[in-house]
């Protein structure tokens, strides 16, 4: 677990075989953890490279641990065509929006920097994304899709919901994780059940780490 978390040592997966997880949850999460082996099906070729670069900007991940395969998680969702039950009328359907959006990002990048989005450095990528977020771009590759809307209604919700549905993300933010049949008993401030993560207060990192290793 990396240094940018207050919950070092905590791994929600350690609880997999405790009463906090039931059979159906284990099956669901096991399946999610196979995403690392997923081969792109919808965002393929150039789009795949753009998507991966985009993911590193939206959710930068620490280098000292295996990364959550965010691009793969999104591509799996696109392959299954799992929508949200509503769509802003100005946006095309899920897959099409992503196809156009990734393509347009690359086009914007080539237009402005002469290189594909994946070949930009971090700063340039982030810069470009800020322009997209604020609707300050107009490459014909957007094909009428409002860039800002794509960013706020597709990029952010889709990527953030995929990342924070991953157990590694739960460990990072100190979320208790799955909780059935065992829920919680200690409900008031600053109390944790023994199966919840310990937050490291300044100066107590080592103790918190030790206790987190024991959380079950």
């Amino acid at each position, binding site marked *: 677990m990396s240094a940018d978390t207050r919950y070092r040592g905590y791994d929600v997966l350690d609880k997999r075989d405790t*009463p906090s997880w039931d059979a159906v949850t284990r099956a669901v999460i096991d399946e999610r953890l196979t995403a690392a082996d997923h081969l792109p099906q919808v965002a393929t070729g150039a789009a795949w490279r753009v998507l991966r670069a985009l993911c590193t900007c939206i959710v930068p991940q620490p280098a000292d641990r295996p990364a959550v395969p965010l691009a793969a998680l999104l591509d799996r969702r696109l392959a299954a065509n799992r929508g949200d039950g509503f769509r802003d009328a100005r946006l095309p359907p899920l897959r099409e929006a992503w196809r156009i959006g990734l393509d347009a990002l690359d086009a914007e990048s080539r237009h402005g920097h002469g290189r594909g989005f994946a070949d930009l450095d971090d700063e340039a990528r982030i810069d470009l994304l800020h322009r997209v977020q604020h609707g300050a771009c107009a490459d014909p590759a957007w094909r009428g899709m409002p860039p800002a809307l794509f960013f706020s209604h597709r990029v952010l919700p889709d990527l953030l919901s995929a990342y924070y549905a991953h157990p590694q993300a739960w460990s990072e933010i100190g979320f208790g994780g799955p909780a059935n049949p065992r829920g919680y008993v200690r409900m008031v401030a600053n109390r944790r059940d023994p199966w919840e993560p310990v937050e490291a207060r300044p100066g107590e990192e080592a103790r918190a780490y030790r206790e987190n290793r024991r959380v079950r």
Partner: protein
Amino acid sequence: MGTHSGHGRLGAGVTAGVAGLALAAWLSGRRAARGTASTEPVRAARACHRSSALLAGSVLADSAMEHERGAYANPAMYVPPLMAALVLLAGAHGGGDARPQRHRVRHAVYGGAMATGVAGTGFHLYNILKRPGRWSWHNLFHAAPLGAPMALLLAGGLGLAAERVRHGRTRVPRLLGRPAGQALGLLVGAGLLGTTGEAALLHFRGAFQHRAMVLPVSLPPLAAAALLHAAVAPPTRRPLARWLLRLVRLLGWLGMAFHTRGIARRQGGWRNWSQNLFAGPPLPAPPSFSALAVAGLAALRLREKRA
């Protein structure tokens, strides 16, 4: 605020509680005693010791678990389980002691328990009053329980009564300036009513969802009434009171069986003990009825002896 609980301490707390309760249960059933054949006051005193021990066992289990839930945030929270354990030991000792003298250490322990009970009631009251909602149903249900420290107070009180009764110089032992049977009957009667109050509060919280939940709020008050009546009315044989108290003694153990089943019925059942022992019906609570019934029966005997 760095206090956190771990599984180890959780297990230790629960184990201590369960062991204490088992010991107390064993004691309360034990009739044979060391030493010579006892006089009635000594027999009554020993019954009170056993009663106090059982009550203390219940308090020990309950406070060890509940204070563990509260992560022993305040060091004072260690005192009640400690005191309850001492009362349990004192009761074990006194329950087997046939000598008609008071015992200084036991006496001190009982006094300490009573003081702890009083202080605990204060702490718990403070806990209730500082929470949003202050004096409200909600805080009575879910903040620190008022009944718990009072049970320790009662356990100490019963122990002290035992010491006084066995120490009697006259043929008829006296307590607080009254005939001991009467005084003890009043104390136990009040204790029974208080305990009923707590059961009523918690079973109201549980919406009396099971029919059996009305038993501990109906039977003990009847027994208490009969006992109080026996205590103040002219001494005579009281078969009804005796039977009611015997039923209450049974009820305590029955209650524990019901609570065991209640825990099993919750999501995850006993496999999910680390949650359900806390969130389910409190296992150690019902035997406090048995404990009081034991002392009540002793009071009745003392009273009947005068007839």
